[in-house]
């Protein structure tokens, strides 16, 4: 769900001093990986069971920090040991991938998640078993490694498939290249998967706010209508659940440039959850919430009441199925939604309606209804869910 990143060579940065910083960071990561190996060796040679601890990445080990208004990871850990039938393969895979990351650091190269899968894929000698069954297996193990080594993915020289687009009144410096986001044509600037300050800096920002939309179809509508120009904003899109790069860049622009973030998402539980991830952080990556969550982000729409408010036709209704209903109730029960009366009301209205609506449904009114009427009206009214 949450992984993507642009290819970028961490080592090729602008200044001499930055290379030194990277080397330090790499050396630190390398040491962590090698320490992990040494632990296994030590316990093996002293006939103790080789094992390591992984912080639990599940909803039971999540805490909602009310003060910071973000999700944080609890202190629960899981033990992964070699001599446990259910864990021994995963244990072997963890070591294999750790070795892969160390080799990447040594080679001063980066790889995608899929590249990593292929790098560590082989048949175990003497058997017909392969080290990984499919990529999803290696992806999970890599996330485990990230949290247990307390190293970010980029520190392990791994990136995800990049997703997400940006356009607007801003110029960014990406790995030394200046990119004017006002002149990105119809395609927009592809947000890289790693948007750390050492790689990306902001320059010349004239925007007043950021509008984040759910997917590229909607984004194209806004771009084509030059919405960001008229309303002086930055327009981003995350192809559904926004990947780390998008969330990181939103966070940084919000924090460093003081831009408010408005979200235009579908009126369904999945849209609501995208908002929740942008605002508080995700359960899976709770350890990164501090660097990614935007507690002040606002939910602009689509609202359940828009069916009447915008006078939409029957045709746009999509019936809620059982899964939607279950998920909506789950979301309503999350601690960070539980105390928000507006949100409770919103979800209740949607459930009472019995249908969901996509952003594109506004096209039934007029091709550019969403850019010319809907969003400007909401901005004017200041009618957002928080």
């Amino acid at each position: 769900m949450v992984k993507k990143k642009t290819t970028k060579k961490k080592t090729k940065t602008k200044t001499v001093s930055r290379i030194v910083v990277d080397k330090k960071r790499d050396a630190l990561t390398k040491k962590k990986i090698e320490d992990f190996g040494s632990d296994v060796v030590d316990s093996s040679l002293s006939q103790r069971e080789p094992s390591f601890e992984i912080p639990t990445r599940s909803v039971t080990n999540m805490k909602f920090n009310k003060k910071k208004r973000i999700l944080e990871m609890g202190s629960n850990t899981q033990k992964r040991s070699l001599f446990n039938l259910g864990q021994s393969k995963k244990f072997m895979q963890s070591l294999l991938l750790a070795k892969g990351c160390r080799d990447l650091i040594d080679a001063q190269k980066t790889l995608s998640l899929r590249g990593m899968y292929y790098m560590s894929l082989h048949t175990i000698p003497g058997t017909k078993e392969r080290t990984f069954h499919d990529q999803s297996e290696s992806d999970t193990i890599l996330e485990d490694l990230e949290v247990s080594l307390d190293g970010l993915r980029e520190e392990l020289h791994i990136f995800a498939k990049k997703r997400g687009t940006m356009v607007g009144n801003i110029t960014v410096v990406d790995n030394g290249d200046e990119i004017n986001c006002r002149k990105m044509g119809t395609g927009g600037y592809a947000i890289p998967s790693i948007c750390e300050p050492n790689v990306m800096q902001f320059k010349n920002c004239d925007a007043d706010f950021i509008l984040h939309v759910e997917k590229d179809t909607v984004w194209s509508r806004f771009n084509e209508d030059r919405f960001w120009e008229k309303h002086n904003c930055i327009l981003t899109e995350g192809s559904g659940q926004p990947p780390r790069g998008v969330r990181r860049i939103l966070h940084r622009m919000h924090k460093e440039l003081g831009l408010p973030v408005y979200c235009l998402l579908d009126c369904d539980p999945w849209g609501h959850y995208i908002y929740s991830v942008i605002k508080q952080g995700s359960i899976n990556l709770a350890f990164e919430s501090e660097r990614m969550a935007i507690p002040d982000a606002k939910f602009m729409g689509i609202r359940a009441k828009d069916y009447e408010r915008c006078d939409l036709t029957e045709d746009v209704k999509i019936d809620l199925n059982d899964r939607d209903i279950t998920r909506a109730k789950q979301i309503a029960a999350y601690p960070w939604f539980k105390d928000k009366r507006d949100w409770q009301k919103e979800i209740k209205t949607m459930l009472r309606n019995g249908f969901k609506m996509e952003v594109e449904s506004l096209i039934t009114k007029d091709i550019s209804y969403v850019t010319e009427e809907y969003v400007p009206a909401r901005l004017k009214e200041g009618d957002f869910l928080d």
Partner: protein
Amino acid sequence: MAESQRDISVSEFFAKNRHLLGFDNPRKAMLTALKEAVDNALDATEEAGILPDILVHVLQLSETRFRITVKDNGPGILRSQIENIFGKLLYGSKFHRLKMSRGQQGIGISAAGMYGLMTTGKPVVIISKTGKKKPSHEVVLKIDTSKNRPTIVSDTEHPEDDQLFADGHGTQVAIELEGKYQKGRQSIDEYLEQTAIANPHAKITYITPTNETIVFPRVIDELPDEPKEIKPHPKGIELGTLIQMLERTEARQLGGFLTGDFCRIGPTKARELAKRAGMSGQTWVKTIGHTEAEKLYESIQSTRIIAPNTNCLVPIGSKALLAGLLKEVKAEFFAASTRPPSVYRGNPFQIEVAIAYGGGLSREDSAKVLRFANRVPLLYSQSSCCSFKAVAETSWKNYGLTQPKNSIPTGSLVVMIHMVSVWVPFTSESKEAIADYDEIRKEMKLALQECGRKLGTYMRRRKRMARESQRRSAFERYIGEISRCCHALTGTNTNKLYKALMKQAKRRTEEADSQLDDEGRVVDNGGKLRKDEDVIIVDEMKDLQMGGESLFENDKPTKKRRTSRKKKTMRKRRKK
């Protein structure tokens, strides 16, 4: 009694009753004749304290005619006794005494001889030698059926240096008779094989009608103890027998009769019994009529009398049982159990059970039940036998076997049940099935359960071992990868690491082995069973290499190889 029987025409008696004695059809008749000869040979050698070495030769003369020759290394028979033993029906001491022995009625060998005479007209040929320095006698005799008296056809004396008996003494009997040879169940082959199981101290050499030689080797070099003869126990007799005993006793007074002719009655107990019957110890035996005898019988029934002495019983013993089973049955697990002696109707008896499981035994068929009484195999009337019912009533599911309702279990199991008693209660004179006494069945079930529990422990351990080895192989698969990774990360020697981890994997899977079993007891990795003297576990590989032919070997070697290959591919599939 022997006198009164002399008056009956023996030929008439025999012609009418030969089905009762086990001569109903040619196949069974041949088996019965052989059985009587072998039983006699074993009894004779054992009583003389000689380890039996018996040669059985069945020669086919024509389609329906056979000559059975049985030679033993016993003490030999005095020339003067030969006629009586082989030529007279119902001669012998076995009928009246209470002593554990193979034969009971004293009909045996002479009946076989008579059957031969009736069907072929040929006499019985007996050669006997009583010592190295003595000549051997060859006697050919017929039975005069109307008088039950032997007629000597010829009598030859062979010189002292005759080489027929290697030990210098022994007896050989040859009977020609009408018969039928067919392998398989209830055959001569099966009888001899089972005899070998129950008599591991005997060496039996068998030359089959097809001229093959099968040797059942001796595996125990010790003779069983000589059983002691006992007097009847008062609780074990019926009113008629009591009256008969009163008529025949040499005692004059009741007290003397009770203490002298029964076991377990002393002067005090005799006085008590007499008093209860309204008599005294001084009452003259002659004055006791039918009414008094009946009172005496009742007083015996209502008085507590100590159970008979059981040292008259000589079981095969767990060790010898296992040795016997081990040499004839190809299985991987053997267990035996000998119950303490018990009593039915005043007769002491003892039950022994041995089981064999797995290995080369067929998996699909029902379990095989081998029944024995006083070391003699019982081949007929299985389902009416008490032992068969005991097997069916035991719940084998508890021990990891499948069992259809009200039936014996299925699977690769052989159950051997042996009853020893001074008087085995057969359901008929042909000695085919043991009568169903509650006391006997209870003892049988207890013995079966004892063995079953050991089997259950073994089965659970086997399952656990399979599980553990699966675990171990899973670990072992990944240990190589881990060692290489660690080597790459830390530079530690791959081999050293691999060995250390393998050692740990082994230890850990062994550790899991010795955890609690289903009954909550600590299982010390088979050590308990290994230490148990009543259990033998055969290494499966060793078992497969064992050659030779056996009635119990149902799995063809080719089939076995195929199944093991199948297993291997399945394992591979699972790995994927």
